[in-house]
């Protein structure tokens, strides 16, 4: 969160920026993940170790909390910037506090911030509530945590805080502040520190453009250190990318000459060139005297317009000049289904290659269609039936108060055998070699069938033995142009086996879609081998997807969850048109908060980082992390790999996806 040492400032980060900071002082450890959602709104997730005489784990609390900060007035020549914020506004409220703060650059090198704080920020030097809301802080009943308690915001006494920073150089900054936080809990134990002063002092040094360190003296007693790492998905380190140049387009008379020295078979000569660009050519077919149909399969390009551009350029090089229209059929590798047809006029492709506004002019003549629903020819399966891989596997589990970071390292063997074009057996076998997951102390919850909160028994019994993570027979089908389906039978995940089907309606000219996901499953035994227990569960969940042009994506799920509870999940994410995505989700069902237990309801943060952003080279691979504070039984669903969800696989070829990165068509 924007701030000086321990007090807030009325500043913001650049829009879209992630910041990860970690600090340690006086027995306190804090790790923050902040995200600048819009130009004015910053949100933050904090995980802290707080020393306290009443600490519930060896004299400490391990606490998760959320902050929100809103800059509603930007600095002008005479007026300061002004921001309002809520700290720890969801949950148990160990850090709960609110503030109003103003910041002004006094000179080029000196910055002054001052504000008023409530809650934890009014521990020292406090005075009468300026809003007339009384000097007693409204009490809250945190219950099981995880809920918002708006009634105590800005209530009780308020205290001033102040900070002053001086830039000795662009990299080096000195900071002093008057803090109103009384560190009530931290001073109550010898594991904390002694608060001798209201002042904090620090230096901040910018080690690199994206990394800073802070050395600090807190309240005249505790020395501390912080590290801050920033990353903005908008700033690609490799700019346009470092892939090699695409195939230039030739004029007809030169093309005729060039084609004389090529392989006489159009498919062969096209397939060879496409392979160099990471695209698989499945077929080339003459539809009529001036239209050539080309089926292609791509697993590499996150920017599908760039892939389309490269495939079109190659066909323009290899196809005889009489073909005026290229009909490119795009096929999904996993399902083997045809998703989208794209018609490209050869003349326009050529004329706009080096034209100013070339991609925009070409867009006017390109047409997208939903591919027809027909039985797919057995093209993919013929090429390579068996795919296998064997790689290290790392699993991390956070937020167990007994051991905040747990994990395992081992291996994962994946095997996929394609029986037919759209039918495959997929499996994953894992074996932890070093693990602490078998020592998770947190037990299952009470009040609901243990559909997820007993996961620790699985890790305990698996230990360092090999287990079947998943083993399924997957069949994909496409009954109509816009309807896609899949059926998965077998060991769906570590804890469940059974049958699951998903139907998706998605028109590739619309930015929305609908889905229905049904599963009938049984619990697997806790060794995750072949045996299955008797307990049976059913999930029926309908989904609505909407992708806004502003790169905000919404997904609303509603239906029956694993424990038999009924409810809905709302997931909102901000995508960056380069593969980065950050989102949050929350599930509310008819399970009372008290029955759900700690955390009150299921919620979390998702973060997706694309490989291509880091390498500058084409790749669809990514790393996704889900920060989920508490796993309960309410709102629980099957944990399935990403490739078991059709919508994301289909929408990558919808018109909006192409339009979003169309400026890369000629890259």
């Amino acid at each position, binding site marked *: 969160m924007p701030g000086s040492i321990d007090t807030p400032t009325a500043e913001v980060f650049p829009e879209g920026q992630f910041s990860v900071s970690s600090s340690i002082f006086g027995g306190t450890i804090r790790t923050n993940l902040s995200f600048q959602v819009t130009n004015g709104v910053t949100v933050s997730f904090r995980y802290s170790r707080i020393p306290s005489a009443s600490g519930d784990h060896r004299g400490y609390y391990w606490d998760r909390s959320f902050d929100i900060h809103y800059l509603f007035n930007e600095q002008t020549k005479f007026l300061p910037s002004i921001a309002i914020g809520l700290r720890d506004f969801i949950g148990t409220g160990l850090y709960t506090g609110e503030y109003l703060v103003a910041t002004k650059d006094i000179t080029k090198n000196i910055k002054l911030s001052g504000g008023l704080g409530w809650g934890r920020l009014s521990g020292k030097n406090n005075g009468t509530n300026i809003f007339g809301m009384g000097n007693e802080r409204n009490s809250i009943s945190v219950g099981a945590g995880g809920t918002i308690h708006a009634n105590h915001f800005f209530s009780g006494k308020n205290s001033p805080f102040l900070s002053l920073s001086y830039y000795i150089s662009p990299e080096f900054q000195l900071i002093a502040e008057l803090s109103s936080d009384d560190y009530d809990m931290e001073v109550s134990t010898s594991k904390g520190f002694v608060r001798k002063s209201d002042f904090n002092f620090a230096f901040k040094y910018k080690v690199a453009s994206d990394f800073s360190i802070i050395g600090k003296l807190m309240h005249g007693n505790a020395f501390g250190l912080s590290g801050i790492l920033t990353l903005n998905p908008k700033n690609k380190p490799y700019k346009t990318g470092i892939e090699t140049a695409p195939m230039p387009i030739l004029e007809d008379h030169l093309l005729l000459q060039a084609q004389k020295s090529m392989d006489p078979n159009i498919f062969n000569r096209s397939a060879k060139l496409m392979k160099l660009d990471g695209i698989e050519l499945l077929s080339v077919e003459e539809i009529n005297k001036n239209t050539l149909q080309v089926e292609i399969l791509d697993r590499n390009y996150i920017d599908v317009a760039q892939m389309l551009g490269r495939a079109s350029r190659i066909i323009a090089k290899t196809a005889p000049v009489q073909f005026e229209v290229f009909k490119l059929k795009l096929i999904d590798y996993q399902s083997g289904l045809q998703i989208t047809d794209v018609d490209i006029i050869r003349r326009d492709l050529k004329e706009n290659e080096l034209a100013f506004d070339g991609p925009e002019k070409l867009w006017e003549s390109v047409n997208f269609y939903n591919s027809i629903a027909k039985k797919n020819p057995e093209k993919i399966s013929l090429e390579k039936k068996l795919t*296998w891989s064997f790689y290290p596997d790392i699993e991390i589990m956070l937020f167990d108060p007994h051991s905040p970071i747990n994990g395992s390292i081992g291996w994962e063997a994946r095997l996929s055998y394609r029986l037919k074009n759209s039918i495959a057996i997929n499996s994953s076998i894992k074996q932890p070699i070093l693990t602490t997951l078998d020592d998770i102390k947190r037990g299952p919850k009470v009040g609901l069938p243990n559909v997820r909160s007993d996961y620790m028994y699985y890790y305990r019994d698996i230990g360092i033995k090999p287990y079947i993570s998943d083993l399924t027979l997957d069949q994909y089908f496409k009954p109509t142009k816009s309807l896609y389906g899949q059926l998965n039978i077998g060991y769906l995940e570590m804890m469940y086996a059974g049958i699951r089907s998903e139907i998706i309606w998605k028109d590739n000219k619309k930015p929305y879609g609908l889905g229905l996901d049904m599963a009938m499953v049984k619990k697997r035994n806790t060794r995750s081998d072949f045996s299955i227990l008797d307990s049976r569960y059913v999930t029926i969940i309908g989904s609505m997807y909407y992708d806004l042009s502003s790169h905000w994506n919404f997904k609303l799920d509603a239906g029956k969850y694993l424990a038999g509870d009924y409810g809905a999940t709302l997931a909102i994410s901000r995508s960056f*048109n380069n593969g980065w995505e950050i989102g949050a989700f929350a599930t509310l069902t008819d399970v009372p908060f008290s029955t759900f237990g700690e955390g009150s309801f299921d919620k979390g943060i998702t973060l997706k980082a694309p490989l291509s952003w*880091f390498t500058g080279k084409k790749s669809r691979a990514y790393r996704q992390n889900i920060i989920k504070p508490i796993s309960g039984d309410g709102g629980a669903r099957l944990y399935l790999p990403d490739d078991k969800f059709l919508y994301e696989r289909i929408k990558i070829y919808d018109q909006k996806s192409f339009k979003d990165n169309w400026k890369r068509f000629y890259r």
Partner: protein
Amino acid sequence: MRILLLLVIIFTCVGCTNDDVIRGNKASFTKVYSNILSRSFDIQREKSAASDTIYDREWLSKFTQPIIGISAPKRSEQAALVALGNQDEKLTWVSADGISVSFANGILIATRGYSQDLMESRHGDQFSLFTRNTKKHFKTHRYLDGQNGYIELNFSCSFKSINNNVSYLLDIKLKTTKFTESCTAGTFRHINEYHVLPKTNIVIKSKQWVSESNGYILVYNYYAFQNNLF
């Protein structure tokens, strides 16, 4: 001991797959992690070693296709690019390591394969820049930002020429007209140079700005000297 042995097997077995896409992705992830640990994103193309090549007519005579040479201003070695694209007056040249540059009338209009490519450009008086008495003109460069949108730089340029300038290309001494183009767009400034055969549009040598990240390239239009022109 068993655990240690398994760990050794796993980590020596990184890359065990029969699928090229998986192998490529896993290798890239490993490289990204090691780059993050070493705090470096510098995995640009391997720099070619400095060569002792003498760029003369004998060297040029070995090429059977039209070529141009390209180098960075501070480097002596050049990359030879062959013409692979031709549309109207626009020529695209491609290097062996996958960089392409496109010119219209000797003026750089696009690049591909650089980390910050000149995606497209628009030049006032593009086809008469060297023949008319141009003093000022405007041009626009477009690049891609991190979210596939355009970064557009609108340059205002002044143009000067020096007649009877002596230029060297290969081992040939030539009289050329040297045009100097000084351009400004906000904080971005560059000065391009074109050595043009007198009273023609033929640019035989130039120094042209590509982008903020890539700076200038030196372009040697050798193809004008192929086919025994001299």
